[in-house]
Structures are given as structure tokens and as C-alpha cells.
């Protein structure tokens, strides 16, 4: 059997248990056609060589049999609080979907006449080239829930989504579409373990000078298998900032596909991941500069111990004519023992001649000299190690503009470190 038919076969098996919801039918139909053309990923695919998609491809969900940690973050923030349980919106536990300057509709309730009909799946479709992202196409076709958020002005407060996991077997497919009109502003917070198996897509369409802040804490859940995608497109002078904290998770693949469509826009994407033991974390990022004078930053750091594996595949593509591009990419891993592993593939592809692009990738242990310096001042070994680990991650947290939110994330990291001292 050839590679293509293996992938097609895997797709048939994977889809056997899924039902395609009826709303947004045309977009789902188009996604289905894309998906059928691609099949599911296999380890032979260039961008799946470091991450085995088997657990995602399998027809059966691997049960997440350990209790998920649903501890809430961002509690002190005045926000519209929305709750999903095992990937399904829980209206009873959520605030009203009413916010000045914002319209919010559930994907599950979207009719074919909904505004999102022309947005849903659009950026995902664009993001399929030059690299296929079958999980995202599957998500568009099969998503059972999610939010369609249209922001026309400055949102009065952040939208804060909490994903709870109650079932050990849920196979959740969640799809959000976020559209910010010119000059609109929104902060989106996401947190929680979500589901035993999660396929999560966010499409973010930013109008001219729109500002979008995204802070995500993928909650502590040792059993979770997740594949997530963020597709963002930026018009002139737009700002996109996204930070993700991942603590634990059996398998997490976070993809980000960012395209500068207009000049003078900025996109910063950061990720802090910490894993102890059975932890495979993959950040795969693709930034396309198709307009002049845009700035992109990719800042990804991982703390790995007891055999945890970290992957970073980050690309900056500068198209012809995207002059004065400022592209930056750093990926680093702190390996707390000899068993852990970091695999990095930084890529630059540049077709403009007046650009500034830099990238770096390192992996190493805690600096002994710094550790001794702290201890010589009276800081005990464990506390000194924690301080240095937090310091290592500081550049990622620095990408969060709101200090209250950053402090919450720091507290979350400290809790994790306290639980994983040995």
C-alpha cells in the first residue's frame, strides 16, 4: 500500500465515529474536500517527523485516566466568563454572550446565513499552503462547538474561556472564529485541560490597526492528547500577541500560522512549556511576511525533565516585496536531566533583499555558576533552581502585556514547579 493510501485509510478510520454537524454547511463541505485530498498525517511527512501522530490518528481516544487539574487562573479579572465541558459549551455555567462592541454566537447555533459563513474555515484554508495541516481541515469540517466572535469596537472586557474536562474519553473538536474590524480590540483568555483528546482551531482575522491579545494556559492534564491551530491574518498596522503556557499533557501539538497581509503590522507569539515524564510538546510555527515593514517575534521555551520531549519547528517566510521585514525567532530548552530531549528545526526563507531576520536555538542545563551564586546568598537549592527556571521562561511571559495576567501565569508556573521538585 502506498503512503497516500495509508493516509487515506487512516482518515476513513478516524472519521468513522464522527458526525458532520449541519450548520455552516458550505464551509464544512469545502474543508471536507481539502481533508480528503490530504489524508491524515504520517511520520513520513516532513513536519511530523519529530511527533508521532498515531495517538491523534487512532479511531479510539486514549483514555485520560488521571484526574485533570481544573484549578482556575485569571480569577481576579473582570471578564466575560465562558465555560466548555469536554469541548461543549455550557450555557448554564457561562455568562451571557453579551458584551459591548462584540457579538458572540455558538458554532453549534450558527446558521448558513450567519456572518461567519464567509469567515469560518477561510484562514484555515489559506493556511494549508505550502504545508498541509489536515487536523485543521478536519476541525473545520467536524467542529461541534466553538464561538464566532465579531468585534466591532474596543471590547469592554476580555473574553475568558475555561475548558473543563469531566470525561476520560471525550474527543472534542472546537473551532473559534474571531474577526476584529478596523481599530477593534479584544483580549481572549483560554485555560483548562479541555478534553481527553482535543482538536482546537482559532481563526483570527484582524482588520487595519486592530489589536488582539491572546493568553492561553493549557491546563495541567497528564493524559491529554491535543492538536491546536491558530490561524491569524493581519491587515495594516494590526497587532497580534499570543502567549501559551503548557504544563503537562501526554501529547500537545500547537501550530500557529500567521500571515501579514498589510504593512506595518506586528505579531508576537510566545510559548512556555513544562513537562515531567510522559510529555511530548511540539510547537510548529509558520510566519509569512507578505507585506512591508512588519515585525514578527517567535519566543518559545521549554523546561523538560524525566524523559520529556520538546519539539520546535519554526519558519519565517519573507515574500518578495516584503521589504523592511523584522523577523525574530528563538527556541530554547532547559533540560533538567540527561533523559530529556529537545528537537528544533528553525527555518528562514527570504525572497526580499532589505530585511532583518534572526533566529537562535539552544538547549542546556541549569547554569551551575548562577545556581552557586544564588545559594551563596542563602537561597536554598530548590528555590534557587525554581528561580532560574522562571528566569529562563521570563522572555516568554514578557510577551504578555497585562501585568495581572502575567502574574497569574507566573503563579501557575510556580505551582507546577513546587509539584515537580524531584
Amino acid at each position: 500500500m502506498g503512503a497516500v493510501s495509508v493516509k487515506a485509510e487512516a482518515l476513513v478510520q478516524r472519521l468513522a465515529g464522527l458526525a458532520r454537524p449541519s450548520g455552516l454547511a458550505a464551509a464544512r463541505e469545502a474543508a471536507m474536500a481539502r481533508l480528503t485530498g490530504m489524508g491524515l498525517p504520517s511520520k513520513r511527512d516532513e513536519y511530523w517527523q519529530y511527533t508521532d501522530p498515531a495517538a491523534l490518528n487512532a479511531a479510539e481516544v486514549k483514555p485520560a485516566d488521571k484526574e485533570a487539574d481544573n484549578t482556575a487562573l485569571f480569577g481576579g479579572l473582570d471578564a466575560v466568563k465562558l465555560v466548555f465541558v469536554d469541548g461543549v459549551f455550557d450555557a448554564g455555567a457561562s455568562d451571557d454572550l453579551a458584551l459591548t462592541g462584540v457579538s458572540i454566537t455558538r458554532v453549534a447555533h450558527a446558521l448558513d446565513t450567519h456572518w461567519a459563513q464567509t469567515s469560518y474555515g477561510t484562514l484555515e484554508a489559506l493556511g494549508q499552503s505550502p504545508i498541509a495541516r489536515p487536523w485543521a481541515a478536519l476541525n473545520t469540517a467536524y467542529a461541534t462547538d466553538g464561538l464566532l466572535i465579531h468585534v466591532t469596537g474596543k471590547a469592554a472586557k476580555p473574553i475568558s474561556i475555561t475548558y473543563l474536562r469531566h470525561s476520560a474519553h471525550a474527543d472534542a473538536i472546537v473551532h473559534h472564529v474571531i474577526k476584529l474590524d478596523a481599530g477593534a480590540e479584544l483580549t481572549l483568555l483560554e485555560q483548562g485541560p479541555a478534553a481527553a483528546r482535543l482538536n482546537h482551531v482559532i481563526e483570527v482575522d484582524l482588520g487595519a490597526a486592530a489589536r488582539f491579545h491572546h493568553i492561553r494556559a493549557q491546563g495541567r492534564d497528564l493524559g491529554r492528547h491535543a492538536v491546536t491551530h491558530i490561524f491569524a491574518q493581519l491587515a495594516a498596522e494590526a497587532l497580534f500577541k499570543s502567549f501559551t503556557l503548557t504544563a503537562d499533557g501526554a501529547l500537545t501539538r500547537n501550530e500557529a500560522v500567521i500571515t501579514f497581509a498589510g504593512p506595518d503590522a506586528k505579531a508576537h507569539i510566545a510559548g512556555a512549556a513544562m513537562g515531567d515524564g510522559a510529555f511530548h510538546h511540539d510547537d510548529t510555527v509558520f510566519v509569512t511576511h507578505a507585506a512591508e515593514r512588519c515585525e514578527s517575534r517567535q519566543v518559545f521555551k521549554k523546561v523538560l525533565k524525566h524523559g520529556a520531549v520538546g519539539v520546535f519547528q519554526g519558519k519565517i517566510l519573507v515574500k518578495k516585496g516584503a521589504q523592511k521585514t523584522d523577523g525574530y525567532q528563538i527556541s530554547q530548552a532547559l533540560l533538567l536531566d540527561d533523559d530529556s530531549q529537545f528537537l528544533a528545526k528553525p527555518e528562514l526563507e527570504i525572497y526580499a533583499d532589505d530585511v532583518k531576520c534572526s533566529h537562535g536555538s539552544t538547549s542546556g542545563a541549569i547554569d551551575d555558576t548562577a545556581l552557586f551564586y544564588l545559594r551563596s546568598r542563602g537561597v536554598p537549592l530548590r528555590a534557587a533552581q525554581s528561580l532560574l527556571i522562571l528566569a529562563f521562561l521570563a522572555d516568554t511571559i514578557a510577551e504578555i502585556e497585562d501585568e495581572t495576567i502575567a502574574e497569574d501565569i507566573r503563579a501557575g508556573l510556580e505551582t507546577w514547579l513546587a509539584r515537580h521538585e524531584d
Partner: protein
Amino acid sequence: MLEIKNLHVKLEEEDKQILKGVTLSIGAGEVHAIMGPNGSGKSTLSYVLSGRDGYTVTDGSATLDGADLLAMDPELRAAQGLFLAFQYPVEIPGVGNMTFLRTALNAQRKTRGEPEISAGDFLKLVREKAKSLKIDAEMLKRPVNVGFSGGEKKRNEILQMAMLEPKMCILDETDSGLDVDAMKLVSEGVNALRSAGRSFLVITHYQRLLDHIKPDVVHIMAAGRIIKTGGPELALEVENNGYADLLAEVK
């Protein structure tokens, strides 16, 4: 205060003896200087006393007010009142200087069973101490020693000393990399900390620093031993004649 007896130390990784029987006694409130040529073991002595990895003590002892220093982790030695001002202060990106100072101070207090200092009291204290060392608010906010000049790093060491109030301070070549003005500032900082209950061990190549920080006792170290002990005049002798005569004298 500090009693070092017949201390023998070798490098852990290679079979190389660095200290070959150092004996030294520093009383409360005294300032001792150790001078010596490169490679004589001065810095090794400071590292071994503060507990850095990489050294094996093969013989001898070191006690601080009777407590066995060599049996303690570095953090415990610090809590007992030992302080090493580093020759090369370490840069720690991502850790703010203020956080560093507060963490260290509170960690020591906790180890000694004392209550933590309140945020307000800490701020007042650090501002007051920083002012006399001409350390501005900006330097306190920056990550520990990152982007500091040589002089700023050394002043930051003295600030830590002033905040932590140790009873036994070791200054490892604190004068290295300092211009005349910076050396004066650092020395003034040290002198301000001199008291009846606090002792100093000043390690240096040059007599210059000892013009500012006047020692009670001067030791000459060579090849892992203290070969001569005397008063401040011994430092002048080294400055005028170099180490060659002293080394020849011993041989």
C-alpha cells in the same frame, strides 16, 4: 570567628592539590588580607569556604564560630553569616536585582527562624543602602548584573553584603576591574560595614586596595600555603619588591 586549620584541597576532576595546609585564624572585628601571586590558591580558598562544587577537602577543617563550615550546604553557610563577594559576579538574566535581594534576605531569615521582612521595610532598607553606594533605582530593577559595568557589578556585591549583614565577609579580588574612583566607592562601602562583630578576609593582588581598606593582618600565600604573616607593612613590602624575595626566603 573564622578558624581554618591545615586545610588541604584538591580539584575534584583532576588529581591536582591546590591548597596544601592553610591555617588561618580571624578574630571578631578583624580585617585580614591575603596577597599572593597568580595560582597560589587564593580564589580556591574563597570558593571552598563558601561551598562551591568541584573541590575535595582532603584534610583539615574550617569553622565559623565553632560550626563546621565544610559540612554545610552553601545556603546554610550564608545563613550562618558567611558572605563571598565574587571576583566575577554572575549575571542572571530574567531575575530582577530586587527580587534577588529580597529572596536571599528572606531565605536567610527563614533558615535562621526569623520572620520575613515586609515589602515596605525591604524597599526602605534597599533604597537607603543603595543610595550610599550610588546604585540608582534603574540598576535595582535590572536583571542581576546583566549589562552592569565592572564597577557596577562590584558595587552590587557590596550592596548584597550590606543587605545581608553577614558576620564573615570574604572579598575575592574585589579591586579587579575597578578604576580609582570605583575602588574608592567600593572601599567606602566596605569600611562602612566594619564593626566589632564583623570580620573581613580581603583577597587581592595589589596593595592599592589595602590603602583604602586597612587590614589588621596581612598574609602572603604561595603554592597553596600561607608563607608569611605580618602587619600592613608586609603589603607595602610586596608592592615595592614583588613576591620573588618572599618566595626565595621561604625556599
